[in-house]
C-alpha cells in the first residue's frame, strides 16, 4: 500500500476512533465476576464462567469442556446468605456413596437462585427444565445469555463474590448417558447421574474494575507488507528500460562489427 492510499484510509478510521473516544468509558455501574470451574465427582471436565452484574440484571458467559456429550446439563447460580460461598469438598458426602449430590453441596453453595437455561424462564423454578439446558455437543458448552433478572439480594451477592456456578450431569458408569439405579435427590424420576454436580466455581470479583471486551486495535498497518510500492515499481521499470537500451546498443555494436 502506498502512502497516499494509507493516509486516505487512515483519515476516516481516525475520525471514527476519536468519535468513540468522546463516547467515553462504559457505565461504571457494571461489576464483573469470574469463576474457574473445577471438576467434582471425578468429572474429567473444566470450564470458566463470567458474570457481569448491573443492578438486578446479569449477563452470563459460561464455557466448559469434557462434559458427558449430548446430555442435558443443568447449570445454575447458587447462593444462600448462610452458605459458605464455596464449592463442596469430598468430606461433605453425607450418605457415604462416594459422590457429592446436589443437596449435599448445599451447605457450601446454597440454593439455586438462577437457572442458566438457553430460553425462557431463568428463575429457580426452572431448576430441572431439562429440555432448556445446553446438551454439550462433543462435551462442550459455550453459553451466553444477557438480561437475566434477579432479586436485588442475589444481584448484590453476585457482585460481592458470594455466588457459585454449578454445572450438573456426570457419567459414573461410563455408558455415555445418564443411567444407573441410584435416583436423583432432586427428582426421583431421574438417575442421580443427571443431577449430580460435575463442575463448580465461586464467582470471584474481577480484579479489573471493568472487564475489557476482547483485544485492542493497536496498529495502522503502516509497517505491514510493502511500503512505497509505487516508487519501487516505477523505479524498477525505469531500470529495466535503461538496461533494455544498453542491451540493444550492445547488440547493435556487435552487429556492426
Amino acid at each position, binding site marked *: 500500500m502506498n502512502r497516499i492510499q494509507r493516509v486516505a484510509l487512515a483519515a476516516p*478510521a481516525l475520525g471514527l476512533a476519536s468519535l468513540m473516544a468522546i463516547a467515553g468509558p*462504559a457505565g461504571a455501574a457494571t461489576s464483573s465476576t469470574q469463576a474457574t470451574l473445577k471438576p467434582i465427582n471425578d468429572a474429567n471436565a473444566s470450564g470458566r464462567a463470567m458474570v457481569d452484574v448491573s443492578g438486578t440484571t446479569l449477563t452470563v458467559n459460561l464455557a466448559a469442556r469434557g462434559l458427558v456429550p449430548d446430555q442435558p446439563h443443568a447449570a445454575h447460580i447458587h447462593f444462600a446468605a448462610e452458605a459458605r460461598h464455596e464449592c463442596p469438598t469430598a468430606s461433605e458426602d453425607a450418605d457415604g456413596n462416594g459422590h457429592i449430590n446436589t443437596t449435599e453441596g448445599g451447605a457450601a453453595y446454597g440454593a439455586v437462585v438462577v437457572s442458566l437455561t438457553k430460553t425462557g424462564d431463568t428463575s429457580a423454578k426452572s431448576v430441572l427444565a431439562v429440555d432448556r439446558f445446553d446438551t454439550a455437543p462433543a462435551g462442550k458448552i459455550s453459553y451466553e445469555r444477557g438480561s437475566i433478572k434477579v432479586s436485588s439480594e442475589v444481584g448484590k451477592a453476585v457482585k460481592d463474590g458470594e455466588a457459585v456456578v454449578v454445572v450438573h450431569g456426570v457419567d459414573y458408569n461410563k455408558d455415555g448417558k445418564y443411567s444407573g439405579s441410584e435416583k436423583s435427590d432432586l427428582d426421583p424420576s431421574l438417575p442421580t447421574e443427571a443431577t449430580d454436580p460435575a463442575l463448580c466455581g465461586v464467582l470471584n470479583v474481577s480484579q*479489573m474494575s471493568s472487564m475489557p*471486551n476482547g483485544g485492542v*486495535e493497536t496498529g495502522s498497518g503502516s509497517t*505491514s507488507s510493502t511500503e512505497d510500492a509505487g516508487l519501487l515499481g516505477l523505479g524498477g521499470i*525505469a531500470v529495466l528500460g535503461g538496461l533494455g537500451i544498453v542491451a540493444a*546498443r550492445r547488440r547493435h555494436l556487435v552487429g556492426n562489427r
Partner: protein
Amino acid sequence: MTDAGIGGDAPPSARRRRDIVRSVAAALLLLGGGAAVAVGLHAQQDDPPAAKEAGSLSSRPSAGVPSSAGSGTGPGADAAEPPSPALRPTRIRIPSIGVTSALTRVGQHKDGTLEVPQPGPDYDKAAWFTGSPQPGQRGPAVIEGHVDGTVNGPSVFYRLGDVKPGTKVHVTRTDGSNITFLVYAVRLFAKDHFPTFKVYGNTSGAELRLITCGGQFDSSRRAGGYLSNVVVFARQA
C-alpha cells in the same frame, strides 16, 4: 534487426548523434530508476516481528498457586500491595527490545473494548488501562501500545513479538519506585477469538499483560487491519 540495417545506411555523423541520444536515455533511466528503487528500499520497514509463541499459560504457575485465587485473601496475597493512588505507573522499560516509554492512560469505549492512544503527542507512548490493577497490585495490570504509526513506521511496541520468556520488564511508579516483572509466556491471539478470561482473568499475584497488534494485516477490516494481538504475560519477579 531493423535498427542495425537502418544504422548501416545512415551517414556516420547521424549514427553518432543517435548513439549519443540512446546512451543518455539509458543512463538517465538507469540512474533515475536506480535512485527511485534505492529510496524505496531505504524507506522500507520490515514487518513487525511475528510473535514466537513460548512459555506456559498453565493455571498453576511455578509459584504453585492457582490463578483462580479468591477475591481478597489467598496464597498470592502477600506478593501484591494494597492499592495506593500514589503508586500509579509512569514509565515502562523493556531493555531487551529497546523500549523506554512514558505511560499514558486509557479507558474503555462504550462497547467495552479498550481505548488506544490517539494521534498526537501520546500516540507512540505505551498506555496503562486505568480499569486494570496498578502494576504491583494483585491482578493483571494491562499496558498496551501501538505496533506501528499513523502514517508510516514503527511505534512503541513494534518489537513486542520479539520478547521471550525470561525477559525483564520494568515499571516505574509515581513515587519513583520500580517493579520488575518476568515474562513467562508470549502468545498471538486472533481478535475474533480473543481469550478474554485468559488475558484479563484474575491472578493470584501481581502480573502484567503487554498487548499490541500483530499477525496478518487486512486493510478491508473495519477497525484496525491487524487480525491478531500479541500478548505478553509477565509476573512480578
